[in-house]
């Protein structure tokens, strides 16, 4: 019995270690149209493979890893920003269509489109006149 428990423990996936170093909140612009929301996020130094976008329980999460560009003990003449991963979550109250989420990363700028669910779109009602 003890052996079985031991085996169970061994097969349990170890928690993924969080990436080392600081994390930053990226600056984000959000544009709303009748079709959905477009998020523009500044993610300098992020490559497409290091970017994770998830949508779960009405929460959209953007997470990105950035490898340090300089050694840890680098001395700077001017040091105005730190290099590290990015993380930010948004709670979207409007019903959306998660299958239609599209993301594009170009030149460190993420463009993410989250379409609204059909039920959330504004419909113009035609008024008949005689």
């Amino acid at each position: 019995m003890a052996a079985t428990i031991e085996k169970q423990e061994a097969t349990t996936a170890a928690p993924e270690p969080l990436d080392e170093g600081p994390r930053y909140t990226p600056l984000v612009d959000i544009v709303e149209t009748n079709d959905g929301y477009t998020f523009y996020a500044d993610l300098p130094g992020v490559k497409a493979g290091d970017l994770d976008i998830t949508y779960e329980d009405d929460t959209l999460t953007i997470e990105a890893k950035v490898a340090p560009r300089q050694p840890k003990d680098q001395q700077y003449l001017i040091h105005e920003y730190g290099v590290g991963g990015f993380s930010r979550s948004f709670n979207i109250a409007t019903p959306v269509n998660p299958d239609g989420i599209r993301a594009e990363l170009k030149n460190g700028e993420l463009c993410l489109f989250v379409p609204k669910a059909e039920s959330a779109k504004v419909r113009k009602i035609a008024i008949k006149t005689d």
Partner: protein
Amino acid sequence: MARLMDLFPPMSSFGDDLDKWVERAFEAVPRTFALEQGFPSLNIFEHEDQVKVEAELTGVKAEDIDVSVAGAELTVSGERKTVTQPQTTWTRRERPVGKFSRTITLPWEIDANNVQASLRDGVLSLTLTKSEKCRAKKICVRT
């Protein structure tokens, strides 16, 4: 003189979890803090006879960036164009747009003919070379 931190019990006494949580909360630094010095934020460091400059310029095209060197003065300027049409409804707008310019006086004169610039994943990297007269010279000691 007792430091301020010594007056308080270490956070670890409340439990490692809380300690980690507090650490993570402070790690998530809003990028807006960095913009108080002007746009773009710069990191500059010396590497032997070279001076390396890094600036985060996401979404800016290479042709919209101007880099100029005059003596010890470095200027990075350009324009970050807005991505949307004028009648756009903004739900949130945090990213700076428009024309930008930053001039930095370096401790050394720079060889204007020897400047390399590259733009990758929204990070502008400049490699400047110190002018001949500013370079460290090794003096041979005769015995």
